[in-house]
């Protein structure tokens, strides 16, 4: 029996174990949508393609599986670009299928034609234009392999309409041949040995890990390393959940809105061991003054990350999980860690002191204005850090990172590298689809929430019981904070006081709305909201002028943090 390209598409997805597609139809993907209908393949209709991509992304981040999205040619794909770029920045495994005009029309400026391969090249790990139905299954197989192997990332497969319509027999290849694409998983033994020696000689060591720990599923190994050596450990925004958030040796997040102790520890350490992190400028602050007195060890699966920003003394190219296993095996061969613990005891005491100087803290007065930190802290305590939390981008995201100590990997879902507003709520839909039995919370600001507000429809339609926590300060808070600090408080185009009545809006979309102005009300609606069976929008009316601290001014050394308004 012959099938058409669209059938082959569906069969290939089944062969890959794909559970659901997030997408939006159009002319160039009509054959494919027809096959989806005929096969009854699970598909979730987003209401705008970028949001659909964020859903697939949230699905991927909350599970570690590859997210799948489908969009039409031209405007479908161009809308999706933001979502692709978001996933690319954070190395999220996704396969995105786009429709293309029939091959004989390519290059003729035909209706809804765009150069999809050209448009997505700089924001994807790889992309394909499938010119012949014979290549379709093999291309899909290759795309899934590339998306999820090595340093993961989004891969785009562009399928012209005549290819999805052409008849051919389905057979899924058993393997792929990519002799020149061989990511290196195992770390170099000699380098691992040298790293261990350097680490064990350190008097003031710091472990600094990033999203690589989550992506490679290495949180067990990462936690074991911290447990064994008791080295003060900090993590990036992407690393949250890589070790249990309440781990006694956790310093919290480092960087621009990181903790005082994490940034000081990194500044004063003698060995900095970077694990699946990439020395992003939001982490390092002023690069020439970043951790100048330390030797650096760096594990990363992507060789381009090593030595790109910071000179590395011991580079180790490899998969974080693999390399940490190798390192742990060697450490276990060594004798007791007690001597090492003694050696770093003064350092640990020093780091603990820093925490007492400027802990992450807030003061919520019963009758005072409602503080966003209070809301997030309450959520952490209620969920014990075991719920999935997605965020949007802005001040609320940084407060969430400071107060929500996720206990496990894949619970923290945030757009770190690209910082894409509009990400949080649709990502929560994807996460809830992936994890129907878990609590999924979307923490959003009133700016970013409006960027993909249409997806409330999807949420209600799919009946995914996401708990939306809207921290409404009636302003683009993070921008306001920068304008206050660096532009003499001249406010420019940030006021959001013209906004819908969010309670009426919730009702219009068909979800439960709840609102709080005070701490007591906040506690109440959190209780009610979490108990409610269905999607709910909890709006917390907070003050306009609250700043997020600590803050490393852009371009300043990371040890020079502002810690309060004064």
């Amino acid at each position, binding site marked *: 029996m012959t099938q058409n390209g669209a059938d082959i598409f569906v069969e290939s997805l089944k062969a890959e174990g794909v559970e659901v597609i997030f997408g939006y139809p159009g002319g160039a993907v009509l054959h494919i949508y027809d096959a989806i209908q005929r096969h009854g393949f699970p598909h979730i209709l987003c209401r705008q393609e970028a949001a659909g991509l964020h859903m697939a992304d949230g699905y991927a981040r909350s599970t570690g599986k590859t997210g799948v999205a489908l969009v039409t040619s031209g405007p479908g794909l161009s809308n999706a670009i933001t979502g692709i770029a978001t996933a690319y920045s954070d190395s999220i495994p996704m396969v995105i299928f786009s429709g293309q005009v029939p091959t004989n029309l390519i290059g003729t400026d035909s209706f809804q034609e765009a150069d999809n391969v050209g448009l997505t*090249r*700089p924001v994807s790990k790889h*992309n394909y*234009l499938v010119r012949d139905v014979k290549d379709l299954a093999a291309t899909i197989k290759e795309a899934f392999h590339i998306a999820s192997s090595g340093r993961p990332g989004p891969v785009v497969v562009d399928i012209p309409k005549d290819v999805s319509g052409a008849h051919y027999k389905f057979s899924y290849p058993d393997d792929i041949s990519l002799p*020149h694409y061989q990511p290196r998983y195992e770390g170099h033994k000699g380098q691992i040995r040298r790293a261990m020696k350097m680490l064990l000689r350190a008097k003031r060591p710091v472990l600094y890990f990033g999203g690589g720990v989550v992506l490679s599923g290495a949180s067990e190994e990462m936690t074991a390393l911290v447990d064994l050596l008791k080295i003060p450990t900090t993590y990036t925004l992407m690393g949250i959940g890589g070790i249990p958030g309440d781990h006694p040796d956790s310093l919290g997040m480092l960087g621009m809105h990181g903790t005082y102790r994490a940034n000081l520890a990194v500044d004063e350490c003698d060995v900095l061991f970077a694990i699946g992190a990439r020395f992003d400028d939001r982490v390092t602050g002023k690069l020439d003054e970043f951790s100048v007195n330390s030797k650096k060890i760096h594990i990363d699966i992507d060789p381009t990350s090593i030595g790109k920003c910071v000179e590395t003394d011991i580079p180790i190219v490899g998969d974080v999980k693999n390399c940490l296993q190798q390192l742990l095996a060697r450490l276990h061969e060594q004798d007791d860690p007690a001597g090492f613990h003694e050696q770093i005891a003064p350092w640990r005491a020093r780091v603990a002191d820093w925490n007492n100087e400027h802990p992450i803290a807030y003061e919520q007065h019963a009758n005072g204005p409602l503080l966003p930190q209070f809301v997030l802290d309450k959520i952490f305590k209620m969920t014990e850090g075991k719920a999935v939390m997605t965020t949007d981008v802005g001040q609320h995201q940084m407060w969430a990172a400071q107060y929500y100590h996720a206990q496990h990997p894949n619970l923290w879902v945030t757009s770190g590298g690209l910082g894409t507003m509009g990400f949080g709520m649709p990502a929560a839909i994807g996460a809830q689809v992936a994890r129907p039995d878990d609590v999924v919370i979307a923490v959003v600001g009133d700016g970013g929430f409006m960027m993909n507000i249409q997806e409330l429809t999807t949420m209600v339609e799919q009946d995914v019981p996401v708990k939306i926590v809207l921290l409404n300060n009636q302003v683009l808070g993070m921008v306001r904070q920068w304008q206050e600090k660096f532009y003499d408080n001249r406010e420019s185009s940030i006021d959001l006081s013209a906004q819908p009545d969010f309670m009426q809006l919730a009702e219009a979309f068909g979800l439960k709305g709840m609102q709080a102005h005070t701490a007591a009300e906040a506690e109440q609606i959190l209780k009610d909201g979490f108990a409610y069976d269905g999607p709910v929008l909890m709006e917390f009316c907070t003050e306009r002028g609250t700043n997020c601290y600590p803050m490393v001014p852009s371009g300043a050394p990371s040890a020079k943090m502002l810690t309060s308004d004064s």
Partner: protein
Amino acid sequence: MRHTLSILVRNDAGVLSRVAGMFSGRGYNIESLNVAPTLDPEVSNVTLVTGGDDKIIEQITKQLHKIISVIAVTDELENPKGFVNREMAMLKVFPKMEQRAEVLRVSEIFRGKIVHVDSKSFVVEVSGSQDKIQAMTELLRPLGLKELVRTGPLAMRRGN
């Protein structure tokens, strides 16, 4: 420092823009770029001249390797003696009557070939190292050089 990179690529859709786009997207410079088929119809060879300090060249090489369509990257500068490096150029000269003989003499010195001649102009073809082509260009300039096209260098590893 100038580096000639020899990059073997799979002939995927848009492969040249994958290579060139990496350079423009990351702010690296391309001095010259040459793409040509190899013996394998599915593989092309890109010869690219770029510049930068060691750190930049290392990053460029790694970033090239990261492109899925890239099969291999060799940097000639790492092993200059290990490579043969040639470039071809064509130079169009409009000499004054009394300088026509001089043009022929310069061409001969550089083992150039006259591939076109008419009553007013010559087209001289020459191949060799970049320095040689540079030198010839300088000598022909005062003799009425009006146009120059160069292939950019091609590099091939000696032996295996």
